[in-house]
């Protein structure tokens, strides 16, 4: 070897005992779907089939909701809050015990690098359960009124980008607040949710408190429209979020929605440049850019744009694209053929509309779904790649001359989920944070998540917050809001 080439460092798959098939998890047991339908889930890095999971339709949804309602009325709402909390602590601890297994299954099913599942997804998921376990018997102190009440039975629909983590963001606060749930994982990433069902069994969680129903968009709609659901919690595209808002408009149901984003990552001329480069790279290439709060627009102050771009390109050529099970992989597989096509279609408008595309040289595997880390320079606000959420490893680069102009461009979008600010000057950071219309503002950092930190968007990025004291509100009956 003439240079320092990292040899293959594969994580072993042996720890993952993926069954050949899974039923639906309803009433504390795995049951076959009433109509016996099922569908496959594949590994997007290799296209091989991992398992066959049940397809839940209206009848199964109905069974699941009934199970959740019975559990709520007869068991969960009657249980002393501190005992409820202890179940959540047990779940947190079991997730920590089985962390490696979950990380491997997550990477196989989702395509994200094993380093990310291992170091980010799974630990954060366990932390969410741990954090919310502590709230269960302290709701009086949450600033939401004395003796706040749960909403009842909650329907939850989660996306494929952080399967177990999104499940934790939904289930942990719901249960801590005293609700029971029916959760539908994403069509392409059901496996860690089904393993989670096993964890519920290991924790001794009472039957029906958590129900997992696998399926597709039709399954999701059936859940949203079920008459005995009190609240919907949804994370996914803005388009579907709006459809849900319409569906429930004539009902008493409340909803929290975590939708899309097109976040601006503002780099000022007084930024710590090397760390800003890491923040830019992390902002758009972490998780293959499949992040609602991704920093997908780089807004760099024009007087440092050349320097930033040169350093960015050099840094991007260090990004290792490939086998997600290799511990040194930085950028894994795109989650599905469908998502890959979407990324390609929107990115191609970048070329068509006159922006300049650049990617470092990388060897993409022949099987599976892959996209190289890509930047477009010469982008303006009117380009599709500056407005539409691509949800892939594609960064649009724009410039600004003055701070005010930077803020204006950053806010010039129907989204408002997140933003990044890079500057060494404290007052400027706080000034920018005040001006930016975004629910989460990262200063001199990016993509940082914590169960104690509320997350959610302005405008068409959704309704409500998840995490922290504020995140509990969505799962407790409002003291004052009327629903019909």
């Amino acid at each position, binding site marked *: 070897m003439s240079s320092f080439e990292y040899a293959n460092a594969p994580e072993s798959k042996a720890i993952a005992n993926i069954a050949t098939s899974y039923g639906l998890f309803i009433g504390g047991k795995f049951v076959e779907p009433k109509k016996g339908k099922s569908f496959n889930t594949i590994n997007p890095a290799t296209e091989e089939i991992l398992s066959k999971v049940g397809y839940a339709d209206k009848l199964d949804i109905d069974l699941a909701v009934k199970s959740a309602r019975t559990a709520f009325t007869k068991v969960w709402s009657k249980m002393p809050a501190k005992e409820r909390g*202890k179940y959540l602590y047990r779940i947190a601890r079991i997730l920590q015990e089985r962390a490696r297994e979950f990380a491997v299954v997550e990477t196989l099913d989702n395509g994200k690098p094993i380093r990310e599942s291992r170091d980010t997804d799974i630990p954060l998921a366990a932390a969410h359960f741990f954090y919310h376990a*502590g709230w269960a*018997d*302290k709701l009086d102190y949450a600033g939401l009124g004395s003796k706040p009440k749960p909403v009842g039975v909650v329907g939850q629909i989660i996306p494929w980008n952080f399967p177990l983590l999104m499940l934790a963001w939904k289930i942990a606060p719901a249960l801590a607040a005293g609700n029971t749930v029916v959760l539908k994982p994403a069509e392409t990433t059901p496996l860690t949710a089904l393993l989670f069902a096993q964890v519920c069994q290991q924790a001794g969680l009472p039957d029906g408190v958590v129900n997992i129903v696998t399926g597709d968009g039709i399954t999701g709609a059936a859940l949203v429209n079920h008459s005995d659901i009190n609240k919907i919690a949804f994370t996914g595209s803005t388009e579907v979020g709006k459809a849900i808002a319409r569906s429930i408009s004539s009902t008493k149901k409340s909803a929290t929605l975590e939708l899309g984003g097109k976040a601006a990552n503002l780099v000022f001329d007084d930024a710590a440049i090397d760390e800003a480069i890491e923040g830019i790279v992390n902002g758009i290439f972490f998780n293959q850019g499949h992040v609602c709060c991704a920093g997908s627009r780089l807004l760099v102050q024009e007087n440092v744009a050349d320097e930033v771009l040169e350093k960015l390109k050099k840094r991007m050529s260090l990004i290792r694209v490939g086998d997600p099970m290799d511990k040194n992989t930085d950028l894994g597989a795109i989650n599905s053929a469908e998502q890959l096509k979407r990324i390609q279609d929107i990115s191609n408008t970048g070329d068509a509309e006159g922006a300049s595309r650049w990617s470092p040289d990388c060897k993409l595997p022949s099987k599976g779904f892959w996209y190289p880390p890509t930047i477009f320079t010469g982008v303006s606000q009117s380009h599709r790649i500056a407005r539409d959420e691509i949800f892939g490893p594609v960064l649009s680069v724009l410039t600004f001359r003055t701070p005010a102009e930077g803020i204006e461009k950053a806010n010039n979008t129907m989204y408002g989920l997140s933003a990044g600010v890079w500057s060494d000057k404290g007052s400027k950071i706080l*000034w920018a944070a005040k001006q930016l219309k975004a629910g989460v503002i990262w200063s001199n950092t990016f993509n940082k998540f914590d169960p*104690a930190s509320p997350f959610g968007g302005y405008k068409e990025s959704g309704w409500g917050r998840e995490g922290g004291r504020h995140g509990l509100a969505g799962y407790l009956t409002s003291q004052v809001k009327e629903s019909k």
Partner: protein
Amino acid sequence: MSRIDVNKTYKLFIGGAFPRSESGRVYEIKGNNKKFIANPALASRKDLRDAVVAAKAAHSGWANATAFNRGQILYRVAEIMQGRSDQFIDEICALEGVTTKVAKVQVEEAIDTWVWYSGWCDKLSSVSGSLNQVSGPFYNFTTPEALGVVAIFAENKPSLLGVVRTLAPVIASGNSAVLIASESYPLPAITLSEVLATSDVPGGVVNILTGKITELAPWVGSHMEIDGVDVAGLSKKQEEELKLVGADNLKRIFRFSPTNHPERILSFMEQKTVWHPIGL
């Protein structure tokens, strides 16, 4: 011939280790049935001095650990205690003369108290801190911060719960503690220190002394390195004397009712307010 038990030697808990009193003294503890149980250490003012040194040394690391980490450790204490329930039940029965059923309730409440406070560690500033809307272009926030070294005179009875109820809220926020156990019912405190020693609690965060209250209280009151005191185990008169001498470094001295409440955590914290301009 029936088997002879190996009786436990009860020592002090200082800096994560189990030393005897530097004075070499012990005193006798008999059970409720007047039978001899043990000779726990009779701590001297020098043991107290050493405990405070250990507590001070451990404070910074403990306060700067993430709240999540502290919460995990307090929960771990509960896990380890749960596994040792029987040991605590036996000890309480022998000491207090109560039934197994009554002792079990006490032990379970003690375990659940650790769990309760564990869940508070990372929620304190959400609940007690604030961003203050001042009139001017300033970002102004208030956040609670641990005091430092807090001395605790544990409740006399219940002998185990009286220790846990006073100790957990003190350390949840990052304070380190020097706990003086009940003079008449000291043993569960020492057995608890065995749990602490095996629960990832860093050495020095909790220090436990057994001995004469009248001997130790004045030294606690006058020690300039002790920042706060919970006087649960003191008489009214002892409390007043402590407050008199504690005024020399304005110790934060409190007596709480025997319940769980976040105020017990916050009373041993300081509220810090920071200003920063907002502008270009």
